[in-house]
């Protein structure tokens, strides 16, 4: 995406309504689904510092990622690379078929040196329809989703400091859930509930 198209997209997004837009990362906006952005020509170049795709394989220090435009990219992971999957973790937690967002630098040999990696991260706006000790059930755009609570799942009530006390998350609330999607399911491992 060139600078002008990126700016047009961002301007339309800033002036449009809140919601969800199709975008595989800020730099990979090949299409936009909301009305404000629908008429933009966003078929552009990729942001070279952002990588997105499906993990094909994992080894000790790199990942092979299949990007949406069907390019295989070797993604280099070092001790300095931050890896997130529900929580800060290591490359050992990454599996084939996970979905990856990464920020980093493209190398001259075509590999991608990652500074930060987010695995399966999702950000759901949903209505809580059920709560028990280990799960949240919620309605997300008419679909039933299950949120699996983790030992370190936290809630943020009215944007106050994170709290391990989830008792304030109750049926009927509209919440924002950040977590790691379990690929191929309507299930997510919950990192944070914004209530």
């Amino acid at each position: 995406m060139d600078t002008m198209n990126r700016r047009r997209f961002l301007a339309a997004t800033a002036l449009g309504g809140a919601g969800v837009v199709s975008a595989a990362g800020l730099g990979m906006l090949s299409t936009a689904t909301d009305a404000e952005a629908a008429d933009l020509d966003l078929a552009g170049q990729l942001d070279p510092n952002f990588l997105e795709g499906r993990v094909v394989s994992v080894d000790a220090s790199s990942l092979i990622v299949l990007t949406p435009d069907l390019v295989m990219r070797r993604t280099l992971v070092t001790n300095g690379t931050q890896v997130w999957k529900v929580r800060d973790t290591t490359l050992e937690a990454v599996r084939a078929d996970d979905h990856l967002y990464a920020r980093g630098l493209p190398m001259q040999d075509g590999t991608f040196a990652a500074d930060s990696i987010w695995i399966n991260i999702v950000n759901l706006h949903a209505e809580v329809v059920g709560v028990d000790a280990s799960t949240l059930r919620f309605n997300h755009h008419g679909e039933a989703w299950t949120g699996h609570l983790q030992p370190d799942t936290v809630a943020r009530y009215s944007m106050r400091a994170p709290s391990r006390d989830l008792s304030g998350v109750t049926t009927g609330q509209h919440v924002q859930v950040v977590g790691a999607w379990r690929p191929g399911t309507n299930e997510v491992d919950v990192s944070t509930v914004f209530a």
Partner: protein
Amino acid sequence: MAAWDLPPDVVTVVVARAKRSAVYRRARPQLASACPLDVWVADGLGFVQFELDDTRRQPAVPGWLVLAVRLGDGAPVAAKILEPGPDVATMSVSDALVE
């Protein structure tokens, strides 16, 4: 980013007006830098894009704040935060003016 294609005085005015807004002051602790990623002008509005600091966010997710200010009086007319969306390959857009 420092190579904006605007005259320096225009950049200064647009950024200063964005930074005087309440939404900027609220968002400042979350920003990676007080220096914008990008500044541009379109249709009588100035746009300023800031990167959110994923290391200061819980959880550490990437995100951007885009502020639009009216060139005439500097009033903020829109502010949105873009973050990873509810499904892969989506971005969630939330209104930062109304928070």
